[in-house]
């Protein structure tokens, strides 16, 4: 019965659209042609859904389409730089426009009350969905950036034939260590390097967990048949490690990348000599 009341909106679709865009312009939420198209599609789909669904609006196929559309519009608006407030304003203005038309076509106050209650319920639900879609769009961006950061933050550098170095910058956590370990081991296999230098001068702090991760990485490299040198141990890190009672004696540690490289040269029986100047 209520839906029959709301179905009258379909006949006034064009008027609804005009009022809606007017309100949107007044509140300053519009951005031109693209929005006009979206609004037209939404208004048409929404009013048809109201006209067609004769039982309750929940779970009906027609409304699923409308919901999909509004989610799409919300995330696309989010990407175009609208604030969540403007996004919500978009649907609220639609509600205002629809209410205005309802008040014109339904003269009976009690019927009008029922109809607008229903309309509010439907549109409020959709407003919440736009918020969710907006948040999800943002979260997707964040998670993509996190992936990207962890991807580019573990560069494995071949410093010499048979020596690879991996400078670690930023805090080491379990998931990051996993990536570091995998990249390093893969690179060792690919290049056939027998020495890996792990430079931790960019790691702000070493706690027992980070040390545990480092020890694991070193053990894994040893299992592969390569030697692992940890370099860039700063005085504060040395202090914390000893205070925490972490045993790093089984691991080759050097103060700087340069001294680690020197050790690596020694292990490969290489020698760097200064060229004699003639004359």
């Amino acid at each position: 019965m209520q839906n029959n009341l709301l179905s009258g909106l379909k006949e006034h679709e064009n008027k609804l659209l005009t009022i809606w865009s007017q309100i949107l312009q007044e509140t300053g939420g519009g951005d031109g042609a693209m929005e006009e198209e979206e609004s037209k599609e939404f208004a048409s789909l929404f009013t048809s859904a109201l006209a067609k669904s004769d039982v309750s609006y929940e779970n009906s196929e027609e409304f699923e389409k409308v919901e999909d559309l509004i989610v799409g519009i919300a995330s696309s608006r989010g990407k175009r730089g609208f604030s969540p407030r403007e996004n919500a304003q978009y649907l609220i203005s639609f509600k205002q426009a629809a209410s205005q038309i309802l008040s014109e076509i339904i003269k009976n106050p009690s019927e009008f009350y029922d109809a607008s209650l229903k309309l509010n319920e439907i549109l409020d639900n959709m407003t919440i969905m736009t918020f969710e879609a907006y948040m999800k769009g943002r979260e997707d961006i964040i998670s993509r950036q996190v992936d990207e950061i962890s991807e580019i933050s573990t560069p494995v550098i071949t410093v010499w034939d048979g020596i690879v170095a991996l400078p670690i910058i930023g805090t080491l956590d379990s998931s990051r260590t996993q990536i570091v370990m995998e990249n390093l081991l893969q690179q060792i296999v690919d290049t056939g390097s027998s020495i890996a230098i792990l430079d931790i001068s960019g790691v702000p702090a070493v706690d027992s967990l980070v040390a545990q991760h480092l020890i694991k990485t070193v053990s894994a490299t040893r299992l592969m048949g390569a030697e692992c040198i940890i370099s860039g141990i700063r005085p504060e890190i040395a202090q914390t490690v000893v205070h925490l009672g972490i045993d790093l004696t089984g691991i080759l540690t050097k103060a700087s990348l340069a001294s680690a490289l020197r050790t690596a040269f020694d292990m490969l029986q290489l020698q760097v000599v200064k060229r004699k100047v003639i004359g």
Partner: protein
Amino acid sequence: MERIPILKMGDFLLVTIQVDLYDQLAENLESDLINTISKYSSKGVLIDISAVSIIDSFMGRILGNIAVMSKIMDAQTVVVGMQPAVAITLVELGLSLNGVISALNVEKGMELLRSKMHTSDNEEQDYDDDNEQ
């Protein structure tokens, strides 16, 4: 019954594991290998596991056992070609395979065995020193 071939190369034995090991196969390999070492009085064993994608704690122990047993029989064991994923799994399992020497590939493993042979020849007289390691 399926067996893993053990090839003799001079003083060394070469074992290439081309299939995923199951428990029985690994146990057979262990006894076969020890018998072959004693038969040829080999000085070194090279186990190539580059084709093995799964090593569980049992296999890890078998590898460790082989290394210790051959050490007692005066043969050095080198495991070569471990895949990164296998190494990570072993470390996560807490098995660092102490006593097993690793090398990246067969070439480097052979080099390592030869150098070990060389040093052990030189240090024959100070045997105590060698034992401590």
